[in-house]
């Protein structure tokens, strides 16, 4: 490979966006009903939950870790939230708070084991993945917990309880606004703050970062808590959307989130990643889901095609690195 020519450089630098554009055009031509304002607007809405998790996941991966537990934490939190509302006649905000704390605690545990006992993140979060899922099933006694609390109606608009797709005056769903707010907030946190710098440095070279006076343990602990917190937020919203806590929520979502990060160019080696690119990575995956469905493909085919596209997007990224 000689010096890359101008067009080649452009192609690889913007690989993900180009794949996105191609996929878009392809669906626009081939999938009936794909190219309608309504359907296009639905993509960010459908992807919002995964995006929320993927933003936290990006930070975890940048520190050189991985978090397999988030999908289960979604279910665990949804069940806890529904249980609190059903069992105790507490105010909705308190139930939300309780559920968020419960969910975040799982991240704190994971972080604690990783930092204190040097358990590899893959193992620690794999353990938490099965533990949280197990707890969710245990608490829900293997069925759904329906929320039967009239108080919840009062909050429906504002915190997206119940009707999640409620839109504001200009027609953007609140969920999408929240999702974008989180993306911007965490994106800025990563790029513009001390903590963000430490996250990147930790993933780049933990020893050197430690010797620069950074409490690497604190940083690592925090990213798992943040990620679990986001999963907990998603859990609460899922429960509100379906008006029940289902212990089977969020199965495999951690993989979708990781895929979004990787497609967005986050390096699994740590030290490199960008939350805004993760957003686009997740949207690409969301678009695939949406378009393939519109084409009338079976879910097996969707899995296979998605896998291939993810691989392709990452290969383009690798070529650029060379």
């Amino acid at each position, binding site marked *: *490979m000689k010096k890359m020519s101008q067009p080649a450089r452009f192609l690889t630098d913007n690989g993900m966006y180009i794949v996105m554009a191609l996929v878009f055009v392809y669906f626009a031509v081939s999938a009936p009903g794909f190219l309608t304002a309504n359907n296009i607007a639905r993509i960010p809405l459908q992807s919002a939950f995964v995006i929320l998790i993927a933003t936290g996941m990006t930070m975890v991966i940048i520190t050189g870790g991985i978090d397999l537990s988030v999908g289960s934490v979604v279910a665990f939190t949804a069940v806890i939230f529904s249980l609190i509302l059903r069992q105790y006649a507490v105010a909705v905000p308190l139930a939300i708070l309780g559920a968020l704390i419960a969910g975040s605690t799982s991240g704190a545990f994971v972080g604690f084991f990783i930092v204190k006992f040097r358990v590899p993140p893959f193992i620690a979060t794999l353990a938490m993945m099965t533990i949280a899922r197990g707890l969710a099933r245990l608490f829900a006694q293997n069925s759904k917990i329906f929320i039967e609390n009239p108080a919840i109606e009062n909050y429906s608009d504002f915190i997206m309880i119940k009707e999640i797709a409620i839109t504001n005056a200009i027609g953007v769903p609140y969920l999408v606004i929240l999702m974008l707010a989180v993306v911007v907030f965490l994106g800025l946190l990563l790029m513009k703050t*001390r903590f963000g710098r430490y996250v990147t440095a930790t993933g780049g070279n933990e020893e050197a970062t430690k010797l620069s006076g950074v409490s690497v343990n604190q940083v690592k602990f925090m990213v798992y808590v943040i990620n679990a917190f986001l999963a907990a937020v998603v859990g609460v919203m899922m429960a509100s959307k379906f008006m029940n806590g289902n212990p089977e929520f969020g199965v495999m979502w951690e993989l979708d989130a990781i895929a979004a990060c990787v497609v967005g160019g986050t390096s699994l080696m740590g030290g490199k990643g960008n939350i805004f690119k993760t957003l686009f990575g997740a949207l690409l995956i969301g678009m695939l889901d949406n378009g393939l469905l519109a084409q009338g493909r079976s879910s097996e085919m969707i899995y296979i095609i998605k896998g291939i596209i993810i691989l392709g997007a990452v290969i383009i990224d690798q070529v650029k690195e060379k």
Partner: protein
Amino acid sequence: MSGSNDIALEMRGIVKEFPGVKALKNVTFSCRRGEVHGLVGENGAGKSTLMKVLSGVHPYPTYEGDIFIKGERARFSGAREAERAGVAIIHQELNLISELTVAGNMFLGREPSVSPFGIINTRKMNADALKYLSSFNIKIDPGAIVKDLSVGVRQMVEIAKALSVNADVLALDEPTSALTETEVESLFKTVRDLKEKDVTMIYISHKLDEIFAICDRVTVLRDGETVGTYDIGELDRDKLVALMVGRDLTNLYPERKSNPGAEALRVSDFSVSHPFLPGEKVVSGASFSARHGEALGISGLMGSGRSELVTALFGAFPKETSGDVFIDGRKVRMRSPLEAIRNGIGLVTEDRKRFGLVLIMSVGENITLACMRALSKLQWVAAKKERAVIEEYSKELNIKAASSRVAVNTLSGGNQQKVVMAKWLANSPGILILDEPTRGVDVGARFEIYQIVNKLVESGVCVIMVSSELQEVLGMCDRVLVMCEGKITGEFTREEATQEKIMSCATGTMSRSGADAQK
């Protein structure tokens, strides 16, 4: 004209470009068979890049130009192919895999296997490794895990690894930067042995004494261009330096008025236990003090505990450390580097790749990593202030980089070292510990670093300087401590210190009381 079979290797019109830099502009370089050919030049002149082109690390056709090995055109697609063609390289930056054993690293990709299933014959591999290690006088267990070894030892493993290739052309890119005199001597012995066997060697070093000691001819590179090739006989040190930097530079160590002030640091009965061997101590019962406005040197052989002492002082091994530390008369406990930094200590570590830099982050981000707290308010990084700091120290240390936004691993070795220095200067420490501060730094830049050190000392900073180079310690420090096997075995003022005295304390042939009695 000599016949073509006398020319072991020839590189013609080599051009190598990286995004934003033309590292090699038009380099011509050739070596005769069986000679030791010195390659010198300032940091960033392109020496390592040229060797990487030669050894297939930068494969064909990522460069322009022609390479001929023994008269045959070579177009390597990678380092493995170059090795097969008999070209091996000892890299400047240590490239061992830290989780593997010494032997595993030496035979990486060439492991002898016992069965068709490819199971590695560890015993044979270790035995082979031992053969090369001992032929080079290295006493290392081939089964030791590399990450437990010090930089110097790792450098020796790296050398042994290259020797095990049995190359005809061997490039040694700053092989001695982390070695002390004794190990350098055994390397030289090996080099002479190889020369007997007609191996052609290219020897890169910033230690010009070594060039004069071992090379037959020297090629000088400047800014990616060949200045010329000279017989060693036609050169002297000053001439060579002038060719390298393009100006005269006669003074090695800049002058400084010695004017020590109040005591900055006192350490008493300071011990560091071995991280793996319970009961063993890497530093035992060290007591010393250092003043503001003083440069204190710490000398000693490899493994004498110099680096362990200063790294422990910096709070890096809180669990292994015992003893009292006083800063400005105040007793302090440093259980983490953060606490050390809060107490005004800075540490330029010996192994910049592992402990000094986050290689994939930018030059700027590395410079400000240790002073982020001062540059941010409620977490938010003040971008303007940060840029100002980065600019100030890039300029002060004359760091050569396409911009401060490029990743620090694209810089030449010496410039990476300057980035580590910059990181700690930006933190304005009261006590600055320098562990091999000029490792891999060229003569000109060395002088700049010495000047900066002197300026710091004059402004009242207490500088503690660990160095393998006796000359450097003698030239820069007001006082010298000598360590041997974890103990401080000698202490000399600048006037008393001589190379002989330091060496005899360092090798343990003279005890501390002996040194004291001499006073």
